[in-house]
């Protein structure tokens, strides 16, 4: 029985070699199609990682913790009390392995007004700890004038480029921030512009002001409390798992869900997540259509190979090979061709993504400058990233093409009648 499959496989394999030119042409379509899919997904995956990295470093973090009602109310009444901040730090320490954690930082965020000598505009005001955020903050990398906040700063503030322009601010300019404090009264705080940033995200550049956390706490009368705590991780691979662990430790420590929501970035920034998902699905749909066309070429090639060998299949049947074995022979032929070329395509895609373009692909010629998307932004130089999930998905696509493209020719081969087949010239 085993010998039967050995000879069936042998004939199938030799037939791939027999029509070498046709096999190579078919294989090249597969190789290029799969390599293109791999590269486009690597580029997109890289861009998505960069979008996530930027968004998390703008302050949300990979894991964001805040009072469950804060997002809706934006009220300082819905804030995290100082004792809970201590518990959060302890839970994060227990949940994150050494090397996985980049930073944990609290912020006080509030909506208010920024007023200069010339004008006033609504802004988002963030009290940040420069000691904790300096090395991870996206804004620290995007200063176009002056400097980022430093430890020891008190009345210094950084503003978005559009804020500076609309309020006619320069380095050293006075700026008055106004917002409702914890007591519900309107409070104001004088600060001096020490730096101006341009993030590339329009809504951030025209509406964000950052000042030292200690100053914000004092001004807004929140004591040692915060409105959010963010966790920045070295990689996004275990974000969901770590978020669940932190939540578990907090619940064990008595911090109830009513007091604190622990959200991975995709829940904290649903617009960004939905946008990235839609982008990935759109790419897959387009590329699967492309691969369907490639699959048709494979079907055509294998069907031609079957039709050209009608007489041979007739002989095989006459010699006692049953329909199943004849079908299996064609399946071997088709699967070897598609799997080998599919894997070759994946390796080529990998080589292009991680070898040829390992320093990134500059797509500024397509879009001009930075690419803002769902509240995040990336440089126009995209670093390709091959994700394990994409490798699995593409391998599944290759196997599916192999099976689907071979089924009809194999079925056709099993229908060949020996006596009729041996009358043909093919």
């Amino acid at each position, binding site marked *: *029985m085993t*010998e039967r499959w050995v*000879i069936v496989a042998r004939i199938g394999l030799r037939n791939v070699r027999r029509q070498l030119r046709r096999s190579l042409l078919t294989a090249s379509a597969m190789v290029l199609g799969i390599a293109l899919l791999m590269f486009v997904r690597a580029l997109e995956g890289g861009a998505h990682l960069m979008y996530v990295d930027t968004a998390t470093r703008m302050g949300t973090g990979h894991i964001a913790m805040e009072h469950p009602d804060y997002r809706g109310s934006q009220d300082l009444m819905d804030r995290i009390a100082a004792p809970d901040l201590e518990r959060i730090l302890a839970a994060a320490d227990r949940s994150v392995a050494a090397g996985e954690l980049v930073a944990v930082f609290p912020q006080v965020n509030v909506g208010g007004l920024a007023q200069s000598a010339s004008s006033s505009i609504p802004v988002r005001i963030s009290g940040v700890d420069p000691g904790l955020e300096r090395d991870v903050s996206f804004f620290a990398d995007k200063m176009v004038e002056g400097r980022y906040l430093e430890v020891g700063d008190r009345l210094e503030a950084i503003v978005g480029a559009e804020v500076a322009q609309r309020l006619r601010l320069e380095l050293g300019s006075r700026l008055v921030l106004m917002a409702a404090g914890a007591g519900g009264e309107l409070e104001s705080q004088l600060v001096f512009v020490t730096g101006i940033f341009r993030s590339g995200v329009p809504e951030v550049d025209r509406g964000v002001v950052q000042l030292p956390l200690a100053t914000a706490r004092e001004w807004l009368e929140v004591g040692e409390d915060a409105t959010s705590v963010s966790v920045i991780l070295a990689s996004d691979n275990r974000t969901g798992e770590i978020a669940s662990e932190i939540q578990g430790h907090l619940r064990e420590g008595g911090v109830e869900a009513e007091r604190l929501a622990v959200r991975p970035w995709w829940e904290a920034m649903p617009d960004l997540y939905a946008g990235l998902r839609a982008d990935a699905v759109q790419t897959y749909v387009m590329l699967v259509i492309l691969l369907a066309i490639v699959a048709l070429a494979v079907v055509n090639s294998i069907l031609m190979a079957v039709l050209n060998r009608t007489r*041979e299949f007739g002989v095989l049947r*006459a010699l*006692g090979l*049953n329909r199943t074995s004849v079908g299996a022979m064609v399946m071997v032929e088709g699967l070897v061709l598609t799997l080998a070329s599919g894997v070759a395509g994946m390796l080529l895609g990998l080589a292009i993504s991680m070898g040829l373009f390992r320093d990134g692909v500059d797509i500024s010629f397509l879009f001009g400058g930075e690419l803002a998307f769902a509240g995040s932004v990336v440089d126009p130089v995209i670093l390709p990233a091959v994700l394990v999930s994409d490798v699995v998905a593409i391998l599944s696509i290759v196997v599916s093409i192999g099976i689907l493209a071979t089924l009809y020719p194999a079925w056709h081969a099993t229908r060949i009648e020996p*006596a009729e087949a*041996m009358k043909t010239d093919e």
Partner: protein
Amino acid sequence: MTDATQGTTSAPAVETRELWKTFGEGETAVHAVQNVTVAIQPGEFVALCGPSGSGKTTLVNLIGGLTNPTRGTAKVDGRDVGAMSERERAQLRLERIGFVFQAYNLLPVLTALENAEFPLMLRGVEREERRKEVMELFEHIGLGGLQDRRPGALSGGQQQRVAVARAVLGAPALVLADEPTANLDTAASDALLEVMELLNEERKVTFIFCTHDPRVMRRARRIIRLVDGHVERDEEKASGDLPGWVLEPVGT
């Protein structure tokens, strides 16, 4: 040495009853085989002769289960081939019948040796045993040293000898041979026919040849002449004789 009749009943090796095969319908219908009733006993050495288009190939195809009859029955070892499933017919061909086709029909991707041993391999015969059998037969029929060549590198006569080897190796109960000597010179024909006679005598393999070749008909011990799809004459004879009627034009 195995007897090809071993394990079978006393039923005829081949038996057809009122067998018809019609191609097409209505006015364009062609009756390739008409009302053929014959019984061939195990161990017979039969030549099917007749002019081209007389239905010889269609008749052996019907016996071998390569095509279905329009009417009537064709039995091999007492089993109605037309009533079998596709799988049963494939199994019958594999285990009981050897075919020699008109146009060699070797598989181009296999070597001469692989082509010849193909049915044995499907039957599960051990590699060493089947290779020994193939090489012995190859030596006997002048194919020694050619076993690793693909069909494309063999002459027509050599290919035909490989095709015959494929049909007779493993001593099937029945060999259906369609013009087996058509492309062979006298010496090669004689060598092949000797092998077949030996198998017929020693292992009681039943042979049915479609042929125009007087050398084959001379060795046959029964000659059936088909004309327009029906049996015109069916006579037994002594091996070596060639009855005069065989060479006479049809209808005289």
